[in-house]
């Protein structure tokens, strides 16, 4: 089993939930991202999503869009994201998901991108603007390098598409499924009822796909994390971490802010 599968299995055995944390690599700079990512893992994050900044993050809200702009303004992008992933891998065995948009991977070439991503010690890719229908070239290249490709399921996704995603998991590595809690972009605050419904939906997606299913979007506090985690296998927290980093005036403040948040989240799930 891979690192991601191990992480889910460990938490499941403890009857706890898997905590996935996102940060935008290069905000405020690459070296800081290494420290911040390791801090998340030390405070109990089970899986790290390292966000590759993109110029046109149309699925993201203002917080991640601002962080992406800052990172790109300092020369960030896929190359720096891979450098940061390698550095984290050199110091930790925490599972890493490279999170991003398709064009940086496509322009590099699916095969070469998959090779470089795997060489950096990344375990899986999550590409927000690559629905399953268009995912075969990257999925096949990723699989040949032992990389998973994480599919997204949204509240609008019909059952037959969920079944297709389940079928893909029989032929390709699909370490987990990401259930999008609401129709919308990242960075909101999910209403309790919305997150509770998403958690129940995630359980249905897990039964249909036979893969652990996490809930993301709109989870900005330990209280919301607890609601979203109820019937799901885990939760993803992104924009709130990015906001903590944005609010910190110094490296120490940023680290402290992120550590505090992840510790609270860990306590809740």
């Amino acid at each position, binding site marked *: 089993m891979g690192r991601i599968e191990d992480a889910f299995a460990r938490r499941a055995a403890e009857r706890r939930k898997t905590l996935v944390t996102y940060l935008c690599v290069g905000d405020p700079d690459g070296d800081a991202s290494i420290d911040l990512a390791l801090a998340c893992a030390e405070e109990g994050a089970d899986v790290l999503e390292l966000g590759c900044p993109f110029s046109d993050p149309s699925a993201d809200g203002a917080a991640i869009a601002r962080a992406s702009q800052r990172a790109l303004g300092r020369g960030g992008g896929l190359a720096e994201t891979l450098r940061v992933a390698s550095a984290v891998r050199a110091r930790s065995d925490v599972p890493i998901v490279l999170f991003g948009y398709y*064009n*940086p991977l*496509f*322009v590099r070439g699916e095969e070469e991108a998959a090779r470089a991503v795997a060489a950096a010690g990344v375990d899986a890719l999550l590409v927000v603007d690559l629905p399953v229908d268009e995912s075969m070239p990257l999925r096949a290249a990723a699989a040949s390098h032992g990389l998973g490709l994480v599919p997204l399921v949204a509240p609008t996704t019909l059952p037959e598409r969920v079944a297709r995603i389940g079928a893909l998991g029989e032929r390709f590595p699909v370490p987990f499924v990401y259930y999008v809690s609401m*129709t*919308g972009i990242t960075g909101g605050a999910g209403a309790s009822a919305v997150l509770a419904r998403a958690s129940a939906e995630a359980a249905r997606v897990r039964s249909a796909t036979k893969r652990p299913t996490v809930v993301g979007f709109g989870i900005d506090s330990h209280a919301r994390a607890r609601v979203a985690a109820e019937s799901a296998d885990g939760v993803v927290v992104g924009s709130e971490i990015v906001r903590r980093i944005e609010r910190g005036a110094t490296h120490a403040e940023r680290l402290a802010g992120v550590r505090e948040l992840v510790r609270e989240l860990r306590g809740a799930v």
Partner: protein
Amino acid sequence: MAVVSPAQEPGWYGPFGGRFVSETLIPALDELTAATREIAATEEFEAELRTLLADYVGRPTPLSEASRLARAIDPDRKTLLRLFLKREDLCHTGAHKINNALGQVLLARKMGKTRIIAETGAGQHGVATATACALFGLPCEIYMGAEDVRRQAPNVGRMRLLGAKVVPVDSGSRTLKDAMNEALRDWVTNVATTHYCIGSAAGPHPYPELVARFQSVIGEEARAQILERTGRLPDAAVACVGGGSNAIGLFRGFLSADDVRLYGVEAAGHGVASGRHAATLTAGRVGVLHGSKSYVLCDDGGQIQEAHSISAGLDYPGVGPEHAWLKTSGRARYVSATDDEALAAASLVTRTEGILPALETSHPFAKLGAIADEVARDVGRPATIVLCLSGRGDKDLETLLGRLLPPEERGGS
């Protein structure tokens, strides 16, 4: 409709097209694809749209022969025999954009959508969408880059008068691509009730095909009109290309006629070599932006670059996937004109024909001489050319006055 589409499978033009969007939007795109087939293709819908285009838009638009301009470009008539202008500037609201906006808003209403959003660059698509929404009594929000809000102020005022809410977008390059990002964010949030009225022949499937279908009225009319006037098809059809909707509309009328050469003219801004341009097909590479695989302007790391053009409607680092296919298959040729060339052409067209063209349309005018030379060499006689005059230039007055007239002649008494 009797148009030939090069799409081999739904949503793909050769290796270009597809749907590269969030999972959340896929069911909405499926719904729109089904509506395109089940509603927009019915005789009832086509008849209703035809009536609107005739009684409200003023179609068919004329095909005007521009002899004085042709003479100015080629005094000896060695390369340019006859030049015809397809007068989309005479459409209600002043550009071809209304053809598509009316079609999509009519379709959205029949789909039961209760709110319309759109992105706009020059503001022509925004005005057209706001107009269609006023006509049908639907609420409308228009996303527009803050830089474009500044340089196309008259159109911002028009949209607001029409009852639309104009939302300035301050992120990224503050132009069309950023407006499109913001519109996508709105759509994914309000997808159950809202139709996203994309203005160009770009975006995820089915948009490129839907927009091309609604704009193909340009090419169908032009084809019938030129046959009536000259007894034969033209040697070339020419249009400007930003995202490419007026060009694809014109080209659809002539795609099946192999001896009609198709030319798209992109915006070269300060010159392609300067790096400050919007000549995506001329100088870009294959990539994925705003839902489809096509040519894009991006760096080696896959980050989308900012485009530049004096014309807000062409200031976009992507292009519709069908144009990418027409380029790589060799069916159409794409050239580019700089800001300065477009400005000079705007002045020439105005003074020879009494028509003030939009800055977008000024780009193909700027390349007419070179295109006529090439076509004439090719066919061995002076050429007959149809050019899509996609919009009128009133919205560009401030830019035109600032660049073309000395200060003492810019206004006042």
